Each structure stands twice: as C-alpha cells, then as structure tokens.
C-alpha cells in the first residue's frame, strides 16, 4: 500500500488527512493523483490539477514524475509558511 498524507489547505480540500492506495494500481505520482480523483472530492482534484503543489516521497521533496514503490509515504504539500 501507499500511504498518502494531505496537509493544510489540501487536507481541507481532500476532506481527509490520510488515505491508503493500492501500490499495484499506481507507479508514479501522476497515476496516484488519477487514482485519488476517483475517490476524493473535486476540490482536491482542482487543487492538484496544475501540479503546483509540492510533493514528498518518504519525507523528501520529489517531482511529479517520481516513481512509487509499495510502502512509500507520499505527502501533498501546499506552499509552506513557517517561521
């Protein structure tokens, strides 16, 4: 399984903070987003549509083309605002 986490505005758009996706169904971030679109609100799909959100795989920033393996943890990250 792939563990998917949503933060801040993207969590609100998703309506959940975490979801699991079958690893066999997706091999990269873009395929993951397509799989999420089938089960999560259209607000999230719209928020991710332009690929401007940052993505992490196993706590490291990754590109939207990043490959995913079983057991990976993916984070969808809106623009940060700490400090």
């Amino acid at each position, binding site marked *: 399984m792939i563990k998917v986490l949503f933060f801040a505005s993207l969590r609100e758009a998703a309506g959940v903070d975490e979801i699991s996706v079958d690893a066999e169904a997706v091999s990269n971030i873009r395929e993951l987003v397509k799989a999420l679109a089938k089960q999560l609100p259209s607000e999230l799909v719209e928020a991710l549509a332009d690929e401007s959100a940052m993505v992490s795989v196993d706590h490291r920033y990754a590109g939207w083309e990043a490959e995913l393996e079983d057991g990976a943890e993916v984070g969808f990250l809106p*623009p*940060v605002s700490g*400090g």
Partner: protein
Amino acid sequence: MGEEYSNISRASAQCGAVVTFVGLVRDIYDEKDSGESVQNIELEHYPGMTESICTQIIEEAHQYYPFDAVTLIHRVGKLGPNAQIVFLAVASQHRENAFNAAQYIMDYLKTKATFWKREVGSRGSQWLGVKEKDAKAVQRWLSMREKNEQ
C-alpha cells in the same frame, strides 16, 4: 529564551559570537493601515519531514558558513499575538558566519520547512503561502553560491 542563549553561549570556549532570532506573531495583516487585525495563528507541520528538512538546511548552512553550535525551536498549534513562533541561535568563532548561517537557515526554513500557518482574524480564516520576499531571499543565496563556485 534566556536559558537557550545561556546553553549555546557555553557550547564551545572558542565561540566569539552568538546570533539569535525570534519570530513573533503579529496582530496585523501584511498590508499597512488595513485597520484589520489578526486574532491568532494556527500552525501545523509534517512530523518527520519537518525535522528532516530542518536538519538538511542546518547542514547546508554549516557547509557554507561553519559554526560551532545551533539551536532551532519552532512551535506549532494555536498562537496569539506576540507569541514566539521560532527561536534560532547560532554560535561561531566570529560574527560573520553566525549572522550568515542564521539568515541562511531562516530564509530556507521560510520556503522549504514543512510548516503551514493559518491566520484567523477579522478577514476570517486563511492559509498563508510563501511570500515573494522569502522566495527572493533564497534566490539570493543560490546566486551567491553559483558565483562562489565559478
């Protein structure tokens, strides 16, 4: 804060400089004279990734501006006006590296560390994003690095 300063100032007998920075919650929006006020902020983060990114930023800062000790504390949760959000202290032999490393760490923290801030106030509730000036600050470090590597 006093205790943190005391700890880092004793980190090494070779330290000749300690630079500290504290980020506070403001009760105003960014635009001046808007007449509106922020009641509080809510900060969340990505546990695990935040620590990993902050460690990476500190290691990079150390690589370019070697220092002897660093303390970085960032709060999360609900914070009211004037509350301390972030505390950073960098100790080094001379002030140049302490100033530069502190600035480098804060600039990258503002643009890369996985914290999210929501302002709650007279305009309702809204998530904040990376400010243009912070993105420009990081660009400045990148340009400087490229220049030094040439």
